[in-house]
């Protein structure tokens, strides 16, 4: 009898909790007094949880995403999901180093060490993002994932990781598709639980457009993307503001990421009368556009411009990239950043190899600070409430290396400014190119 009573109590408790948690759903009381709930997948949850509720009701009360309990002596697990192979390896490796330094500097949170439990490869494409994210969430102890490197991998990873209640925070995803267009419109691939410390490309596109129109004085531009969300997002973020300024997009075309022969799109660009080609793509396809452009009739003097995806040591040292313009995030100049770079060099024997190491460092530290704030001790166990973690990340203001970080409702945390740089004969490596700043645009300059 007592067993049955507990069971009934559990069912009632579960009902109450689900109703409380599911404020968005509509509930109605029918004539015979039975409460039915419509909305979301509540009905199925009800069936699944009713039997186990007796055990979990105490923990469920904390938040609908559940909690992660860390026993005394166990580490707090963090995962990295970055592009660490192939031509974009420098983009991911740079950030993995940022995360490693952040973990080493932080030491421990509430007496627990921090462990980088996964160092997955996002392959810079959606398959890699999907696979890596799935592998990571299979471990129920992982609290947060720092990644991805590429927006293309970020789209599936954001879905998989946030659906599992965990946090995904990226230091280099920049596509507007993952958050919003910065004008208050939520993007299709935005999920709660996704944050980023990198800029939104709505800003980078507008900055590049303003530079081309006002500083270079060019009005006829061709854009080339490779179909990836990052490159597509950035070309459209460029095209809109550029046409608003009064310029003309004479050609908006695409190549594939493994294409070597660029003569067809380049001939089309020449026929359309392009004065500048904006191609925010990756290596290796990015190698071949400046290589082949001068050999196309009509493009001998065309101006070439890339973006932060090409702003790496392996690219700026190519002879054909000389003279190219790049847009990218501002390099911090604070003493704290200088110290970070010194530590980076001591640890890895070379200066930073890409632009997003500090962003990844900040992302990791934001997560650590948020965990520190919301984690509670329950006996010997450290309890991290995942919903509270999201709320904390969404509302906190964090002073990082890259500036003051404060997330908007769609997960954009950066207050970025964008540099326009040029790779001239004098610039021998990525550090020099990142130092050769022609113009800096803040969000206010661009009216965003």
């Amino acid at each position, binding site marked *: 009898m007592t067993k049955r009573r507990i069971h009934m109590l559990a069912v009632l408790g579960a009902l109450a909790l689900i109703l409380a948690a599911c404020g968005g759903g509509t509930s109605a009381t029918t004539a015979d007094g039975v409460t039915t709930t419509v909305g979301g997948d509540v009905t199925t949850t009800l069936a699944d949880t009713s039997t186990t509720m007796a055990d979990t009701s105490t923990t469920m009360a904390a938040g609908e995403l559940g909690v992660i309990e860390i026993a005394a002596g166990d580490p707090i697990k963090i995962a990295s999901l970055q592009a660490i192979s192939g031509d974009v390896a420098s983009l991911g490796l740079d950030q993995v180093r940022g995360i490693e330094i952040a973990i080493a500097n932080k030491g421990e949170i509430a007496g627990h060490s921090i462990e980088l439990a996964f160092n997955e490869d996002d392959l810079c494409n959606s398959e890699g993002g999907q696979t890596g994210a799935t592998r990571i969430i299979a471990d129920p102890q992982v609290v947060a994932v720092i990644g991805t490197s590429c927006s293309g991998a970020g789209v599936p990873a954001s879905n998989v990781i946030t659906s599992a209640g965990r946090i995904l925070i990226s230091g280099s995803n920049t596509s507007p598709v993952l958050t919003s267009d910065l004008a208050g419109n939520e993007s299709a691939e935005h999920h709660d639980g996704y944050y980023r410390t990198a800029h939104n490309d709505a800003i980078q596109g507008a900055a590049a457009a303003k530079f081309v129109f006002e500083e270079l004085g060019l009005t006829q531009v061709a854009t080339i993307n490779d179909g990836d969300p990052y490159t597509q997002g950035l070309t459209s973020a460029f095209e809109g503001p550029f046409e608003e300024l009064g310029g003309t997009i004479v050609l*908006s075309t*695409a190549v594939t990421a493994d294409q070597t022969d660029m003569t067809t799109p380049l001939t089309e660009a020449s026929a359309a009368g392009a004065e500048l080609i904006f191609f925010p793509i990756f290596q290796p396809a990015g190698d071949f556009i400046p*290589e082949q452009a001068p050999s196309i*009739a009509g493009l001998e003097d065309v101006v070439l411009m890339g973006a932060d995806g090409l702003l790496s040591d392996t690219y700026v040292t190519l002879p054909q990239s000389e003279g190219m313009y790049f847009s990218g995030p501002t390099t911090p100049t604070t003493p704290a950043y200088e110290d970070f770079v010194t530590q980076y060099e001591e640890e890895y024997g070379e200066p930073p190899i890409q632009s997003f190491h500090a962003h990844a460092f900040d992302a990791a530290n934001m997560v650590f600070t948020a965990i520190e704030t919301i984690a509670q001790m329950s006996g010997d166990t450290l309890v991290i409430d995942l919903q509270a973690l999201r709320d904390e990340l969404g509302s906190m203001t964090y002073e990082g290396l890259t500036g003051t970080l404060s997330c908007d409702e769609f997960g954009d945390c950066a207050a970025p400014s964008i540099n326009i740089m040029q790779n001239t004969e004098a610039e021998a490596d990525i550090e020099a190119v990142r130092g050769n700043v022609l113009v800096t645009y803040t969000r206010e300059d661009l009216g965003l």
Partner: protein
Amino acid sequence: MSEAISVPARPIRSASRVTPVTIFLWGLRIAALAVILYGSYQSISSGRLSGAQWRDLLIFGTSTGSVFALIALGYTMVYGVLRFINFAHGEVFMVGAMMAFYVANGLAATSLWIASPFVSLLIVFIAAMTTSASLAVLLERIAYRPLRNAPRLIPLITSIGASFTIQYLVSGLVGPSTKDFPRMEPLRGTINVAGSLIPTSRVVVIVVTVIVMIALYLFVERTRTGKSMRAVSEDQETAALMGIDVNRTIVTVFAVGGAMAGVAGALWGLVFPSLNYFSGFLPGIKAFTAAVLGGIGNILGAMLGGVSLGVVESIGPSLVLAGYDIPAFSQLKDVVAYAALVMVLIFRPTGILGERLSRDRT
């Protein structure tokens, strides 16, 4: 036809020929032609590209196609004698290109590179050819000879395995990063070809390909070894009975095919000077397509198929797809290439020049 109906035996035969499948195929052919012609008419009449630009695209396509043709020779010659597709051939090409990169890189540091570009190029070509030919022979010895009498599917699967093995061996040996081929000053300029300025490297590719192909043709048709190659591809057992060393001939076929891939690799490095361990995959698949396009097993077919594929890929997107206002059509050049293969196979199921197989095997 009316006469045929009066003869009792004939109508049945002609009636059986016009099946729904035949009607469907003809419909498909006419529809395909209509789609291509309408698209081409639209984009040519729009005057978007000038005559000179079409001609440039044609020359660019021919030069890329020449490289495909050189690689395709290896596929088609091996198919000719052993009746299986050596999918590791794309990797033989990549290894040739890698060797060309290392030799060129070494030479670029010497004064020979500037003082005598022709000799330097010759050294690069010889190194690439030797490496690729040796690798192809090694593959034959290790991976294919033990399977000579196995069902045809077995060496095919083996070749896919060999392909991955070589890719990751190279990745392990030289690292996964992209190698930047050193530039050769005389090749960076342009040459005036029939009124349009064409990059010298593209012209060099076409010229070298033509020379190599003529040499290969003479080798196969005029020498004793060439004759024994043709005999082995005709009928291995009879050839053996006539005193031809079949094993030796097959090794020669692999070596010659590999050398062609080596030349292709060095030429690829001149035109597309960035390469990594994965660079052989796409050109390999394209060359295989070219071999099928021209008629697998047919050496002239491979040459023709390679060049046509390069041209179709270069001109096709601008010519046909642009006519339908398809956005970002240049991204679809691979689609155009494979669609062209399907088109040719609809009209001529054995390829442009037809499959050259001995009678008893077909």
